[in-house]
């Protein structure tokens, strides 16, 4: 049996592989959506934070001699801490301005961070190998999945779900959503909005950092690893619509799969397929798949 001249195993395999890429898209767009939700800032520095996460993982290994699990904890914390500094030092003083300034500021921050990292660590990057427990592959018959990638999908799903529950199903979530709309009023109810805002950025940054650590064993750890990714994630976010976190997550995985399948059926289009899907979505539903306004 074949589908369009391709064996179904290959297609199933690609769906699975696509899910892995989708894991990164989902984690990153979730972080973007959280930051956007509360700060109304499109965090252009997200790719740079992702890269910092990967480098932080390398540093915990190379400088501190710690293992992958330690990196998995330390790196998101470190990136989150950096996020805190960025939020306090820069973003905080531009909330009252047009939201585009947030985009421009974080664009500058991204250039600066990536420039510095290239200066310090070189453009070719640093080695980081798969943790020993995850060495090797699972042969599922129809596809071979490196064990580590299985772990990535799992880790991403668990994280996305946990964050989603945290925000949608707790009081914190309604604080976040309300503060998005009218921060002054929320603070009049006795809620510390500036703390809330900072936490949102820290959370988003930490998620980016976590994706970075997860990526380090798969992708070469280089200062530019986040640069091109971020634009794709933007397209994912636009397609999903900025309205909902679940939108960000679902579209993230979905786009990963679509991209994976394109690589089999029509590889020449695989670099643009996500943008094409975005364009189609804009034609059909300008607010995005899960967007609220329409």
């Amino acid at each position: 049996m074949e589908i369009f001249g391709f064996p179904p195993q290959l297609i199933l395999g690609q769906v699975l592989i696509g899910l892995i890429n989708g894991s990164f898209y989902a984690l990153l767009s979730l972080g973007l959506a959280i930051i956007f939700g509360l700060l109304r800032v499109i965090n252009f520095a997200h790719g740079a934070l992702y890269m910092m996460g990967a480098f932080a993982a390398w540093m915990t290994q190379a400088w501190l001699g710690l293992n992958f699990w330690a990196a998995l904890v330390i790196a998101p914390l470190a990136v989150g801490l950096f996020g805190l500094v960025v939020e306090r030092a820069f973003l905080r003083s531009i909330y009252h301005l047009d939201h585009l300034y947030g985009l421009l500021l974080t664009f500058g921050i991204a250039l600066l961070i990536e420039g510095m990292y290239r200066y310090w660590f070189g453009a070719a990057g640093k080695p980081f190998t798969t943790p020993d427990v995850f060495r090797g592959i699972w042969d599922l018959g129809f596809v071979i999945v490196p064990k580590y990638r299985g772990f990535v999908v799992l880790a991403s799903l668990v994280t996305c779900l946990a964050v989603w529950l945290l925000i949608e199903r707790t009081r914190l979530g309604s604080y976040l959503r309300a503060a998005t709309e009218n921060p002054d009023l929320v603070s009049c109810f006795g809620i510390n909005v500036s703390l809330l805002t900072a936490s949102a950025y820290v959370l988003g940054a930490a998620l980016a950092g976590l994706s970075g650590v997860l990526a380090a064993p798969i992708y070469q750890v280089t200062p530019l690893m986040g640069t091109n990714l971020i634009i794709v994630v933007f397209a994912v976010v636009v397609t999903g619509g900025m309205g909902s976190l679940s939108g960000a997550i679902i579209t993230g995985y979905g786009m990963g799969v679509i991209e994976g399948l394109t690589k089999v059926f029509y590889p020449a289009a695989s670099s643009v397929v996500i943008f094409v899907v975005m364009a189609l979505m804009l034609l059909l539903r300008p607010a995005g798949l899960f967007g609220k306004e329409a």
Partner: protein
Amino acid sequence: MLRSHVLPVLALLVLLCIAPLVFYPIFLIKLLCFALFAAAFHLLLGYVGLLSFGHAAFFGTGAYMCAQALARWNLAPELALLFAVAVSAALGAVIGFLAVRRQGIYFAMITLALGQMVYFIYLQAPFTGGEDGIRGITPGHFLGVVDLSNPLALYFTVLAVTTLAFALVWRIVQSPFGMILEAIRENEPRAISLGYNPTLYKLAAFTFSAALAGLAGGLKAMSFQIATLVDVTWQMSGEVVLMTLVGGIGTFLGPVVGAFIIGGLEQYLAQSALPAPVILGAAFILCVMLFRKGVAGTAKSLLQNRAPKRSTPDNPETQATNRIVK
């Protein structure tokens, strides 16, 4: 309005006419191309309130199309430029059609993404020659008379074309059409209720801006005799944003000043020990944090401060800098 610009514009023109005595014509040409590119970008940002983060797509298209026409079809330079403008405008209409459905940050993200898509298309298209670019351009004679292989003739041709383009931008901004653009930026639902179709106006402005960006790219390709992928990258889109930000959003000459500063800075940084991306990143941060009016905006408000100041409760000047779009 017009009065206040006559002197600076004249001064600038005079300076540009004598500049080749001091600077390399080719370097000046680059600045002019950037200035036109920035003005095209600013037409959207400053007057329609739309921040396009994918304008390199049009700049690059202009460059590739002009290069293609000159190198492979041996068209006359003016025809090659027209071709570049036409294709960029068409691309602008398509991208604009998709993008103007959303506003603000969404618009910025969408243009960025579509711009990146255009980059990939050029990357893969065989005619662009990948990393080597389109080469072998001989610019020929402009309008059949001006020999463009002479650097000075080339410079003055580019100067004339850009000056005309600037005049056109000025005309559009200061036309009844420009008035409606301003109104749409101020209050879109109100404009709709007055019977205007904002999508159409924004699309017209977008297409126009794309056409001008294409002209800038075409001029650059014609002058440098090469068209490369660099002109289509999103970094280029980011650079034009930076130029406008540095120069000053909302001032007619801002983009020109910004383009000159950034173009000059790049050249200077090239021979200094400072890492260029870090400096540009820092410039971005600095402009957003402390210097939102940009150079031209600051100069303007300094000049106005000397004149008796109008004090209204909410000063429009400060409002304009807090707000790029409504």
